[in-house]
């Protein structure tokens, strides 16, 4: 029997996730899509696909007869709204997977640390840029200690919603913290760029990792293996270029102002993320990697908990 879940938030993310569950999941069953606007496209789409809906938020969900059987709730709303959703979910013994930047619970990146979070009542999905890049930092970290990791995410302007735009600092801050806490870099930095070109550009991520010196082939192999693991749940995730390496000698160290001088290896990784186009267009790889990672998280949690 499939494990029952609900999604709060009937915008782009929530609707895309609903369609992913319906079309691809052998493990999860979507019981309800929860919104606050009865006329939203997402709720309309849910009704047409036979999914129960409410336009009364999480309180509406708690009154639905489907509620008791639901084990996992996805939150695709906003950081402000999440605090209340967390409270209601905990009170009713449901696990909540948080796709907002609220970060009440620990950060998760499925290929890196999910298996350690089996009992967490609240799990945060970092950011789209974090889901795309932290696996790469981790891949280098598995080979050699990482001094510093920096990521540049560029996304199509059309794929940046009003929430992202109103609080773009949350992206840079949360992603930097994730690079350190989950990726294992001593120091993390994140940059986001919106590009308005038409036709819209595909999501791109560039990851620069400065690590201790080691055999370059070991790093390359670790990165290529990690890319394959991410591709299992984000099929459009790929290396756009061969991984680039530069040796930084002790006599010409990299000076990071405020941090110090570092030598070792600089690894540059050029990624592209093409969306699956379930609800959002292909260029919106940033939104696709978020919903795909949340789905993977719920599926893996379900498996782990059944096995435990």
């Amino acid at each position, binding site marked *: 029997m499939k494990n029952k879940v609900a999604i709060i938030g009937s915008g782009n993310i929530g609707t895309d996730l609903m369609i992913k569950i319906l079309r691809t999941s052998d493990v999860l069953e979507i019981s309800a899509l929860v919104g606050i606007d009865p006329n939203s496209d997402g709720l309309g789409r849910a009704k047409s696909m036979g999914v129960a809906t409410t336009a009364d938020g999480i309180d509406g969900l708690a009154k639905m007869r489907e509620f008791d059987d639901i084990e996992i709730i996805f939150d695709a709303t906003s950081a402000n709204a999440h605090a209340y959703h967390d409270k209601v979910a905990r009170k009713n013994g449901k696990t909540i997977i948080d796709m907002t930047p609220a970060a009440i619970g620990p950060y998760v990146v499925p290929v890196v640390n999910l298996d350690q979070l089996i009992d967490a009542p609240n799990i945060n999905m970092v950011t789209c840029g974090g889901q795309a890049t932290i696996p790469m930092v981790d891949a280098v970290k598995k080979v050699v200690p990482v001094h510093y990791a*920096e990521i*540049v995410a*560029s996304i199509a*302007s059309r794929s*940046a919603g*009003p929430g992202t*735009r*109103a*609080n*773009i*600092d949350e*992206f*840079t*801050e949360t992603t930097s913290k994730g690079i350190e806490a989950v990726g294992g870099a001593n120091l993390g*930095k994140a*940059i*986001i*760029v*919106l*590009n*308005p*070109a038409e036709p819209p*550009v595909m999501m*791109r991520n*560039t990851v*620069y990792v*400065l690590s201790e010196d080691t055999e*370059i082939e070991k790093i390359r192999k670790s990165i290529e293996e990690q890319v394959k693991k991410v591709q299992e749940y984000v099929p459009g995730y790929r290396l*756009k*270029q*061969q991984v*680039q*390496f530069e040796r930084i000698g002790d006599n010409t160290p*990299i*000076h*990071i*102002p*405020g941090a110090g001088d570092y030598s070792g290896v*600089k690894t*540059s990784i*050029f990624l592209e993320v093409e969306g699956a186009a379930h609800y959002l267009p292909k260029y919106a790889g940033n939104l696709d990697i978020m919903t795909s990672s949340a789905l993977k998280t719920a599926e893996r949690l379900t498996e782990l908990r059944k096995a435990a």
Partner: protein
Amino acid sequence: MKNSRENNLYIQDTTLRDGMHAIRHGYTLDQVRNIASALDSAGVNAIEVTHGDGLCGSSFNYGFGSHTDLEWVAAAAEVVKNAKLTVLLLPGIGTIDDLKAAYDAGARSVRIATHCTEADISKQHIEWAREAGMDVACLLMLAHMNEPEPFAQQAKLMESYGAHCIYVTDSAGALLMDGVVDRFKAMNDVLDNKTQTGMHAHNNLGLGIAFNILAIEQGATRIDGSLSGMGAGAGNAPLEVFVAVADKMGLPHGCNVFGLMDAADDLVRPLQDRPVRVDRETLSIGYAGVYSSFLRHAENAAKLYGIDTRDILVELGNRKMVGGQEDMIVDVALDLSKIRGTANGT
């Protein structure tokens, strides 16, 4: 239309910010003190001091600075007596926390810059800066990539968040005369009379000073320039040249032209390890319409991958890359080297 002659010009120097690009963000603290002191004595209204890409621009992507922004700002604050200390912030790179720290180090004016179609990502930063009592100017970058009317609508958004001034920011040095005039006219049509306008030029097509004059004719009161043009690409409108022209035109500016000339030639030009001038590479930036800061990164990538700098710049223009996408320079170089079979595969 506003009558420019009744307004005092506000001279905003960018030597210690845009000029960072020209020397790969490498000013020493003594150089910052000397240049800031000379600018202050020469009577400029404001001195911008930050990494070329704004607060927290230090990175692999844009180049690590020789110092932190706070060290640079604090050094300038030690010597500046009259001018306002300005910092640059690009949402997506720097954050409100970084701005708070800059304020504590002595910055009282901030310039918040976004791509010319993405004004709405600046709301939280503008609001915080106004709350803190800072002077707030906003830069709509790569102004040639948005038509005058929609450009003015973006300016209107920034005004609604609290900006005191909106700049036509010709980051690629790619605008033509009409392009500058039409953007100011469109802004004058929609902005409140109290909102100032400003011009930030790059000299890639040799038009920097002319753009400043055109802007003033359209009512602009804030004018950017840097000593000897020290800035990205072919540089900004050289400040000492602009002030000399303004003098001869009888425009009120409050600066000492000889003091600026001396500072330009004695303090700044000798620091240029790559001349700041219109040449094959910087002209190509204006011609292809790409971000002027791409210059030195493109030159490095060209050398590393055996590609022509101009080919990289033109391809970046074809791909409609915007400010901040310096990572795409190596991406383009790798693509071009694949086509030419010169990839070294490492």
